[in-house]
């Protein structure tokens, strides 16, 4: 057994989320690469919630439909997920509350009573039984428990040991000679990437799926000397960000589509007043409230055009935790160099998925210093320069009067309505885009995977990286990922598609937003694979979809 998946399910409030992370850490300790998918309803107590912990010898960034071990703490867990079970799958269940005609029944309810433990510790008990069933020693379990459980550790270990003792070994999970890696969520990767990019202030109004960034940064605020602020609404979030940016604080905000709607006037202000702000935009299915705790890629069009007027924005859609970290840092750096808003477009799958995080694979990220005022002559906040970038000074800098303005303005930041000057200033701001596009040539803004000389390409953006790369490799397809979407790196994109005759585009929306966006650049997409039920693609599902298309494709 060196590539397997474990599903743990129960009611919301049963501790499924925490348990899935502990299970992930157990297999991390024995050398596996982990990906955890979380599926939960928008309720605090009750409803059905489950996590799939996928473990593999190789780095993975998606979960499978098929599971090998099902940990059932209630009857629904078996009834809802039986169809996912593979041929040799094992069900481990609480025999005091769940009926099953197969698998390993552990009287968890009785054990909890005997040990005078809490209901919540049924999780610990079933994890103990799982370890025994898969040939993992109590030593590994104890190490992970001690690191991840802060309350009642002895009692938790006691019930885990009782579960372990009453189970028997079904399969032996091979220990791999790989070092454990940190397990972090996409949200945590974004938070760390922003910190690496010099983040000083993070402002956010809670909204799934990006609240994890707010919670994480609030937790580490003291360690990294951050100001983390939760104001009255997203309008205040964005305007506060503009204020922090004006004073020279590197600032980011986080939200989802609904909150981003409220931020758009501030986004446009960021464009006009040239105030760098990084926006973490975690997508979920809309329109409106939609499916708050599920996933989707419905905000590409919105992110590309949000805000009144025309202004340059940097838009990037990372595909996994390492890309999320890397591009969060780069977004901060480029936002400050070019004094533009930057949007990190992610989704629930990436935001809340847990990944084995390989920091070494990212390599060194070079810091970029913004252009600061050289203190010569009269300071002009919007000095018209060759590349459109004006030098920055901040309030309390001596001899500089720093005037920023939401109105069209002259170089000094004073309101103007003159027709010629209007054109000059709009052109100044847009010149930055040309230089930004040039700078992007230094970065891997379009990534290629799979069979590089294949004539059929699978095209995707964002979190579909996991299933697309896996299936592309399996089916011998070229796989292309535009990571930066604005300003669009057309040159690199066309380069990536060299030799490709047919393109299949994979998106989590109902209209094919990338497909439609590419029409503007005369890139024709032959086939679309769209999914918009709030759930991410799995490799199995995507393979089936691709197979259906490939039988019809004539080159």
């Amino acid at each position, binding site marked *: 057994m060196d590539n397997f998946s474990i599903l743990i399910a129960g009611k919301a409030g049963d501790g499924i989320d925490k348990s899935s992370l502990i299970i992930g850490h157990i297999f*991390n300790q024995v050398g596996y690469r982990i990906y955890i998918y979380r599926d939960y309803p928008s309720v605090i107590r009750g409803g059905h919630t489950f996590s799939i912990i996928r473990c593999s010898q190789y780095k993975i960034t998606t979960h499978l439909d098929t599971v090998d071990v099902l940990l059932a703490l209630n009857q629904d867990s078996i009834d809802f997920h039986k169809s996912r079970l593979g041929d040799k799958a094992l069900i481990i269940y609480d025999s005091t509350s769940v009926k099953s005609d197969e698998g390993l029944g552990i009287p968890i309810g009785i054990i909890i009573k005997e040990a005078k433990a809490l209901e919540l510790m049924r999780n610990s008990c079933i994890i103990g039984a799982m370890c025994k069933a898969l040939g993992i020693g109590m030593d590994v379990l104890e190490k992970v428990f001690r690191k991840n459980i802060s309350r009642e550790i002895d009692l938790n270990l006691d019930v885990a040991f009782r579960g372990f003792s009453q189970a028997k070994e079904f399969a032996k999970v091979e220990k791999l000679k790989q070092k*454990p*890696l*940190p*397990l*972090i969520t996409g949200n*945590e990767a974004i938070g*760390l990437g922003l*910190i*690496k990019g010099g983040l*000083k*202030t993070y402002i956010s109004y809670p909204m799934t799926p990006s609240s994890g960034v707010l919670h994480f940064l609030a937790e*580490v605020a003291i*360690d*990294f*000397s*951050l*100001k983390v*602020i939760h*104001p*009255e*609404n997203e*309008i*205040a979030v964005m*305007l*506060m*960000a*503009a*204020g*922090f940016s*004006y*004073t*020279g*604080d590197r600032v980011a905000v986080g939200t989802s589509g609904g909150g981003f709607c409220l931020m758009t*006037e*501030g986004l446009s*202000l960021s464009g006009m*007043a040239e105030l760098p702000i990084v926006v973490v935009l975690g997508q979920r299915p809309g329109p409106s409230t939609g499916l708050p705790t599920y996933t989707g890629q419905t905000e590409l069009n919105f992110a590309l055009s949000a805000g009144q007027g025309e202004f340059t924005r940097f838009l990037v859609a990372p595909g996994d935790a390492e890309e999320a970290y890397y591009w969060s840092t780069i977004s901060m750096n480029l936002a400050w160099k070019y004094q533009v808003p930057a949007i990190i477009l992610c989704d629930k799958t990436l935001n809340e998925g847990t990944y084995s*995080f390989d*920091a070494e694979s990212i390599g060194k990220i070079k810091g970029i210093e913004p252009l600061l005022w050289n203190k010569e002559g009269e300071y002009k906040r919007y000095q018209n320069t060759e590349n459109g970038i004006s030098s920055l000074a901040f*309030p*309390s*800098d*001596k*001899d*500089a*009067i*720093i*005037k*920023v*303005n*939401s*109105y069209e*303005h002259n170089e000094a*930041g*004073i*309101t103007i309505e003159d027709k010629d000057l209007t054109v000059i200033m709009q052109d100044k701001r847009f010149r930055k885009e040309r230089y930004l596009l040039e700078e992007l040539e230094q970065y891997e803004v379009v990534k290629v995977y799979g069979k590089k000389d294949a004539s059929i390409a699978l095209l995707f953006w964002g979190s579909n990286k996991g299933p697309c790369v896996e299936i592309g490799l399996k089916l011998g397809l070229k796989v292309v990922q535009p990571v930066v979407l604005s300003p669009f790196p057309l040159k690199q994109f066309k380069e990536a598609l060299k030799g490709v005759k047919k393109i299949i585009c994979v998106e989590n929306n109902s209209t094919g937003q990338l497909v439609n966006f590419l029409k503007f650049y005369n890139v024709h997409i032959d086939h679309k694979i769209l999914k918009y039920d709030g759930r991410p693609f799995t490799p199995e599902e995507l393979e089936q979809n691709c197979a259906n298309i490939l039988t019809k494709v004539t080159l």
Partner: protein
Amino acid sequence: MMGMGNVNLATNAKNTWCPGCGNFAILNSIKAVLGALIDEGFQREKIVIVSGIGCHAKIADYLNVNSFYSLHGRVVPVCEAIKLANPELKVIGFAGDGDTYGEGLEHLIFAAKRNIDINIIIHNNRVYGLTTGQYTPTSPLGFKGRSTPGGTKEQPLNPLELMMASHASFVARGYSHGIELLKKILKEALLHKGFSLVDVLQVCVTFFNMYDYYNSRVYELKDYDTGNYDKALKKIKEWDYDSDSRIPLGVFYKKEKPVFEYALSNKNINIDAKIKELLNDYT
């Protein structure tokens, strides 16, 4: 008496307010107050003004200090951020009544509740000027504006009463006629540590000329204890922005209390080492 100070705080921008506009009184008062502060040694580069959108907001173009010409209704969050980012700055927000009592009211309530050390000055002309004459949150009942030709059917808000309910630590009312009193109130507001709101009855001569009305009703608060919440509230309720009662001017309430702020950040953090340490914890 406060002079205009020795520093020139004027810009080259052409002033486009109507002749007789109450905004001139606010501009001249704040110039005098800031000039005096600078003369007394406060560094000019540590002054930041923020304005919204509306006639009042042009003050950002007319005052030669650091400025952030913000959006309609969005003076307050920008002020809060600038102060939180750099506690050494003196942050003064100029906003309109439609601007901050209407479009951006929630920000005002929260800034007061947080007691962030910023100064908000409302140019309360009780009419939308720049959009040519519609009612605002403080227009009297029955106000006939271009969007309410038959007269409004809603009571005006008493913004000072609302500020008291929101735990504002400095609440005052000024008037654009009688500049010495206005200067005195603004200076006291600027020296207050904590959130301050000064509602200035600023007359719009074009769309809602209230000079005669105000002149016959205003009086200055004298021999008055600014530290008593209940008395302040009672005084604030003397005029509800609708009735024909007398209109008190001056500082109604002032209280020292903890301000919302962040400790100055520690600049000596080895980010890379700390990230590595944190990742180890996640392994």
